[in-house]
């Protein structure tokens, strides 16, 4: 999954290079959303301070 996220960013950059700016921004936001969802998936432990 993580490699897939990097791949999506690579695709975003390639699309941007080839002149499809709106498409690249759309793919960027999809990728960023997936990154955020994967981040939420990973933060399973609650943060607390035990003194």
């Amino acid at each position, binding site marked *: 999954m993580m*490699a897939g996220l*990097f791949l999506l960013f*690579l695709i975003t950059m390639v699309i941007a290079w080839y002149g499809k700016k709106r498409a690249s*921004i759309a793919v960027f936001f999809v990728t960023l959303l997936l990154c955020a969802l*994967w981040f939420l998936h990973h933060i399973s432990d609650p943060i607390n301070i035990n003194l």
Partner: protein
Amino acid sequence: MKHITAVYINSAAVLGVSFVLLGAYYIQFAEGEFPCPLCLLQRLGMLALAFGAMLNLRYGISSAHYGISILGAIFGASVSARQILLHIVPGTGGYGSPVLGMHLYTWAFIVFVVSIFLIGLMLVIGTDYEASERSEYSKRIPQFAKIIFFIVLIITAANVVTTFLECGLTQCPDNPTSYKY
């Protein structure tokens, strides 16, 4: 601010992010410290931060491109802050070796926050460019801008490969100690 000056500044910013990502690779391969899932997400945050500036290099300076970088930096800062808080209690240790006294996730948080500040400055002093000026720029992109764009492209491609070697198609281990492939 002249348009080309803003392009130079954006180029320096993209090179700065590239330097950070290459530094992460140095820690990974020369020091033998594997990136954890949160570490990889911060690398993604760096790429998101750089992407807005890359759009500036490709299409000319636009406040929308700066907005994209800010969103990427906010995501990256959130991940860094999470990792800082996981280890903030004294004695709990950290992930990875500190560099110049601070762990990489702390340095990453500083980079993200400083970037948001600097982008704010650029929004104040340099985005009122005519559409015709941007259009002319995108027809004749300077060679240095193309090279810098492709440097990040190559670093991103490298991260696809190295992340796949570490994690495959499954979830990355929380504390990786070896490559999967």
